[in-house]
């Protein structure tokens, strides 16, 4: 009985509670479902939530020898396509495992919130019947629903669950993941007026986005951009320039959500996953027909136009196409300077995705093309003024096959090919000596095959193989860079201890990478999660990570024509290595409040540093690379999410980071010691108004500029307050007008160059016909 109490607590927390009876005699269960329905009926001013509806389920067969009928409650997670992606029997009964298998075979029409299909958690009761039940007043058939008595009850107070993929490389409920996965949802992207992935992460918790002349780069937990792995749909990307992937490459039109895992993740992802992993998930087509378009115009000639159309081509085949255009004028942090701080940008994207489903199989093909032109002005200290044009292009094609038979196995295999090209043109003003045109081209092909084998509800094993081929042609490399890497990994996820007052899950993982250029690396990780109750969860992990030296670091031959120094690669470089720990907890003391805190530390060794070699009379100063440096970052993160009143939510995040640069015996440059983030979302349902505010406050940055006389100085610039506001007025589902301001306080300095204050306004429209994707029974 105590178990039941526990379940209802769980339901109250985040479940869309439901009890579905499959067998005729479960009148009690039906009655309970009805009660829940009444109790939790949507309030008139809440979002329109349509609960999931059970479409089919296999017939539970009572095993021989069963003396009395048994009803086992199973909590299931139903994804946005109506499939059961997770099932947990709330019982220790011998038939619990069988009940789980049956529940996994169930098919629903998905729940929707304001017409959008969303994943939900519901409970169903699987009844193993000994004797045929009476027929009157009962649902008929097996798992069919009775219209008069909705089998699923919902509550407007409950949030749909969040499905994430980055924590375990398979879909899972974020609240059950062994590692914390932060999600920036499609809704947050749209309502925040966000144009690309960089802007989405600018005010996110635990990360920082820095602008350079090459674009926008990401720092996680105080670590440089080369120590974070950026993925698109789980696939590695080429095109790191100066160690960083420019996050502004990814236009919002193709992003479904962004997932962030902080902490060492090389055990699943291999190289570069030291500070964490950011996975950009692209949008899936799932409507019979939907067309949407949005146009924005603002100060500094900020102009955006995005459009998307998706539809059902065939009973089980969906197509989605999207395109986007973005423009922005350059800006100067110092108005008197000829040099620009932020480049003029012109960006265009087109992309498409085709999804087909056949039973338990799903095939997807995706292609996208990006054009990004950045134009800026550089001024050297000796008076050279250079117009710089950088043209980035990225073409990506991927094919994915998923097989999903939850009770037996899940399989994902994906082949992704990406070509990245970057042309840089330097055009010196008043002379041609420093003119330069460089053309870099990078190819990356990666296969990922992952299988997950559940042994039981409490234990499963994930195995993966990930070969990769990468080449780089660049005028800065004397030869084409080529590398082949094979990664194999395994992760076990199991409940190892389950006293009445809690549950301990251990998730050990191990990955081996063999690389044609630097040899092999073994990356182990152990993560643990302890659920004291359904509202108090502890998490801890230890992991080792590595980062492969880049082609540039291995092979570079770069002469800086401006002054005449040369940088030479070092083919003998070893991989950089790290180990990191994480420990934290999340609690939900009240329905409307969650609080989490995490301590972390990362230690990096064999870091690749630029070292000076003996000067040469012709080439001048010579620099090269060596595995010399060490550094650590350490800190704590805390976050609170609270629903103040219905329609008003607030999220606060705080991160403290202390860093140490072992080479120079000082803090790492530019890392804010304190970073506070806040996001507020309010909705006035009757007036069809949504307002959002996002803010990041940075304090305690240190920089070490060198003066003309060669003296190293120390500068602590003041605090930065980055604030964005946006209001959206909707006119039904088809039209919306919005206005906003970015960087309200016009913050930014010579060290952290932010877009100046920008006002904008725009209009969005959407046309939907027919229903959402459904699985046929």
């Amino acid at each position: 009985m105590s178990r039941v109490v526990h379940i209802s607590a769980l339901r109250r927390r985040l479940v869309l509670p439901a009890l579905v009876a499959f067998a005729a005699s479960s009148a009690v269960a039906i009655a309970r479902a009805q009660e829940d329905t009444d109790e939790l009926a949507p309030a008139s001013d809440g979002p329109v939530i349509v609960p999931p509806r059970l479409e089919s389920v296999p017939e539970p067969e009572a095993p021989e020898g069963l003396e009395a009928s048994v009803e086992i409650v199973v909590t299931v997670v139903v994804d946005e396509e109506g499939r059961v992606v997770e099932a947990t029997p709330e019982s220790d009964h011998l038939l619990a495992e069988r009940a789980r298998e049956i529940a996994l075979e169930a098919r629903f029409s998905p729940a929707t919130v304001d017409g959008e299909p969303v994943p939900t958690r519901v409970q169903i009761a699987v009844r193993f019947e000994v004797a045929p039940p009476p027929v009157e007043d009962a649902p008929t058939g097996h798992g069919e629903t009775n219209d008069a008595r909705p089998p699923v009850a919902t509550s407007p107070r409950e949030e749909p669950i969040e499905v994430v993929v980055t924590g375990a490389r398979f879909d899972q409920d974020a609240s059950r993941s062994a590692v914390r996965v932060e999600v920036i949802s499609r809704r947050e992207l749209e309502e925040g007026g966000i144009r690309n992935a960089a802007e989405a992460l600018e005010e996110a918790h635990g990360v920082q986005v820095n602008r350079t002349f090459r674009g926008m780069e990401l720092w996680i937990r105080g670590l440089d951009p080369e120590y974070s792995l950026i993925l698109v749909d789980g696939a590695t990307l080429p095109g790191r320039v100066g160690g960083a992937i420019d996050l502004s490459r990814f236009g919002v039109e193709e992003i479904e959500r962004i997932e962030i895992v902080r902490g060492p993740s090389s055990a699943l992802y291999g190289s570069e996953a030291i500070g964490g992993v950011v996975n950009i998930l692209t949008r899936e087509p799932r409507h019979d027909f939907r067309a949407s378009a949005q146009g924005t115009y603002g100060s500094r000639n900020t102009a955006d136009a995005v459009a998307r159309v998706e539809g059902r081509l065939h009973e089980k085949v969906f197509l989605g196409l999207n395109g986007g255009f973005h423009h922005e004028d350059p800006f100067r942090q110092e108005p008197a300077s000829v040099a620009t701080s932020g480049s003029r940008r012109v960006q265009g994207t087109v992309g498409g995705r085709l999804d087909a489903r056949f039973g338990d199989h799903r095939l997807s093909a995706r292609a996208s093309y990006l054009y990004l032109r950045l134009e800026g002005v550089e001024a050297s200290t000796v008076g050279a003024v250079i117009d710089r044009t950088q043209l980035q292009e990225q073409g990506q094609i991927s094919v994915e096959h998923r097989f999903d038979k939850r009770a037996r196995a899940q399989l994902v295999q994906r082949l992704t090919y990406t070509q990245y090209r970057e042309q840089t043109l330097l055009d010196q003003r008043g002379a041609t000596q420093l003119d330069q045109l460089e053309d870099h081209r990078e190819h990356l092909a990666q296969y990922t095959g992952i299988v997950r084998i559940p042994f039981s509800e409490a234990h499963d094993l994930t195995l993966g193989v990930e070969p990769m081929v990468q080449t780089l042609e660049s005028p800065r490399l004397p030869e084409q860079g080529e590398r082949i890497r094979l990664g194999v990994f395994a992760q076990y996820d199991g409940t190892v201890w389950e006293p009445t007052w809690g549950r301990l899950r251990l998730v050990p993982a191990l990955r081996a990478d063999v690389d044609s250029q630097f040899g092999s690396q073994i990356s182990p990780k152990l993560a643990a999660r302890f659920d004291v109750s359904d509202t108090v969860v502890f998490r801890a992990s230890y992991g080792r990570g590595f980062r492969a030296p880049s082609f540039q670091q291995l092979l570079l031959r770069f002469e800086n024509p401006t002054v005449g120094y040369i940088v030479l690669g070092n083919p003998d470089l070893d991989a950089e290595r790290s180990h990191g720990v994480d420990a934290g907890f999340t609690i939900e003391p009240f329905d409307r409040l969650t609080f989490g805190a995490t301590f972390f530390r990362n230690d990096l060794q064999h870091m690749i540093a630029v070292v000076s070699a003996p000067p040469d009379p012709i080439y001048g100063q010579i620099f090269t690379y060596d595995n010399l440096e060490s550094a650590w970052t350490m800190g704590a993160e805390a976050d609170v999410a609270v629903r103040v009143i219905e329609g008003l939510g607030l999220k606060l995040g705080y991160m403290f980071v202390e860093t140490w640069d072992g080479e120079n015996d000082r803090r790492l440059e530019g890392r804010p010691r304190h970073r506070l983030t806040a996001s507020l979302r309010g909705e006035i349902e009757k007036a069809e108004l949504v307002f959002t505010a996002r803010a990041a406050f940075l304090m305690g940055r240190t920089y070490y500029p060198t003066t003309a006389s060669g003296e190293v100085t120390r500068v602590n610039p003041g605090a930065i307050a980055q604030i964005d506001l946006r209001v959206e007025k909707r006119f039904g589902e088809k039209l919306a007008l919005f206005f906003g301001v970015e960087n309200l306080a016009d913050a930014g300095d010579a060290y952290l160059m932010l877009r100046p204050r920008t006002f904008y306004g725009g209009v969005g429209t959407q046309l939907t016909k027919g229903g959402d994707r459904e699985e046929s029974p």
Partner: protein
Amino acid sequence: MKSRLEILGLFAVLALPACAAQLEPTDDGDDAGWLHPDGGAIDEWIPMGHFRVKYQGDVVHVRVNATSYESFRYFDLDAVANDEDPARWDLRFQRMAVEMNGGVTGEGGVVALVLDGVSFDEVSVAPASGYSAPVPDSDDRDQYADSVFTGDHDEPGNAWYEYTVDGHVLTPRPWVYVVKSTEGRAYKLAFDGYYDEAGSPANVQFRFAEIDLPD
């Protein structure tokens, strides 16, 4: 169904633009590099191969286009001419390297010394002693012959320039050199810069004037 196939075809075309845009160099930079920081129109400078010279009283101002990574540019102080003849050239330039026709870097017998703490105008008579010719590279950090222009990098401050790593800026030291040429005449010489007005490097600027030999 046909229209659906057409949509699919369009999708395939959109998906494969194969990275086709091409940046082209504009090459609009007229070389404005021959303007001296002191002022003076371009026509005051007399072109002389890779050099340009300008006379200002007894002082000769020289600008060298030393941008080539492959070849030295040779200068004869006595004739004020661009001359590669091994018997006549006195100084040669390549990027930031300055070498003399003597010691291990030439057979012309050129020697030089460096004077610190005096101005160019103050020097009117060449010192009697203290000259040196380039010698083989010592066991220092660099890989080239030691001379008064290049110095020994284990003793910072010996090269004709000062190098600031932050910004990679090269600044001439305020020193005066005395050079004894292939013809045995003495010249005082000072470096004025490494960059032209457009900020282009390896455009070495120096001035020189003949001075009296010691009695």
